[in-house]
């Protein structure tokens, strides 16, 4: 009896390990996160640094701010209204004295919240370092 119990325990452990290593398709562990392609462009403007233009996959729920952080290191801070504003991309920081800011547009429109808008398949995100004098 003791031998049987031990055998059952070992078998159970082996099955569990196999499930971890080889999850069945459709199972919670086997499900890959949903991703879709977006296009990202980053223009450093007068900062004289080569920009970026390319397509890559992002997960559902990704925001424009999260997406650009996949391409360049970013720094958050209070540029306007929240500590989560984006003040630096790729080492290029906003310059309030010269009125240079990082501006985000989505599919050509600036009506986007970089921190809250959730991207969709095929979205075109653009980050530009520009002078906002007008």
């Amino acid at each position, binding site marked *: 009896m003791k031998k049987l119990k031990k055998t059952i325990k070992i078998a159970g452990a082996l099955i569990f390990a196999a499930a971890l290593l080889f999850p069945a398709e459709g199972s919670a562990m086997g499900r890959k996160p949903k991703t879709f392609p977006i296009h990202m462009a980053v223009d450093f403007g007068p900062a004289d640094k080569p920009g970026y233009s390319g397509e890559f996959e992002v997960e559902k729920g990704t925001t424009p701010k999260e997406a650009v952080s996949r391409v360049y290191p970013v720094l958050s*801070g209070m*540029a*306007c*209204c929240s500590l989560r504003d984006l003040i*630096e991309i790729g080492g290029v920081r906003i*310059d*309030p004295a010269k*009125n240079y800011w990082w501006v985000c547009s989505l599919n050509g429109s600036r009506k986007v919240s970089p921190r809250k808008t959730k991207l969709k398949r095929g979205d075109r995100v653009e980050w530009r370092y520009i002078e906002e*004098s*007008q």
Partner: protein
Amino acid sequence: MALRSGNLGAAELSGRISYDGPAVKQALRVEEKRKGACGASVDSPVLIADAHGNLKNAVVILESRKGDAPENSESAADLQVAPAKLTLDQKNCRFDPHVAVVTSGGAVEISNTDPMAHDVRAFLGSKIIFQFEMDAGHPVVSKEFNEPGVYVLRCGLHKWMHAYVIAVAHPYFAVTSEDGSFSIFGIPEGNYRARVWHEKLGEVVIPITFVGEKSSLDYTFSVHNNPATAS
């Protein structure tokens, strides 16, 4: 505006700051949705020089030869000079004055006499110090500038609107007027240099020598050192 210490020093520094480039008058285009309230364009306050080259809104700050506060001086608090209280108004979609200097710890009273709202933001470097909205007729808001440095104030709604508030740890400074002239009074005895600053033309440091109790400083920013301003 120069402050009189009324206490330690009797020396005076005065002079004129000028610019040898072409007289500049630049009109900034106002975005369409703001035109009704602000007009079609706003004169740029960035580089104001008259036909004689006299430069407005340059700042002259006295420093010891080592680059810190004037020798033998005390802080504005120790001199019992009340930090200057400055009024910064928002009028005709511009900040007035465009450049101001206060002793650090001094208060700036910000008002809005325009018929529309403004969104006031103050930066020190890339760091925002404060931000608040002011509707038309909003009560005056008083803000202290405690840390010495060059603060940029901007309106979040009217992108061209900006001003500079420079906070200095002592009261020996001046802002040039329309004719480029300035005066600094009550300077304690010592060896100095003057830091001359302009938002567009840059900054220079010039040794000062007092003869008796007076010294004069005339300096010309040259277009040759500032090719970006030549157009």
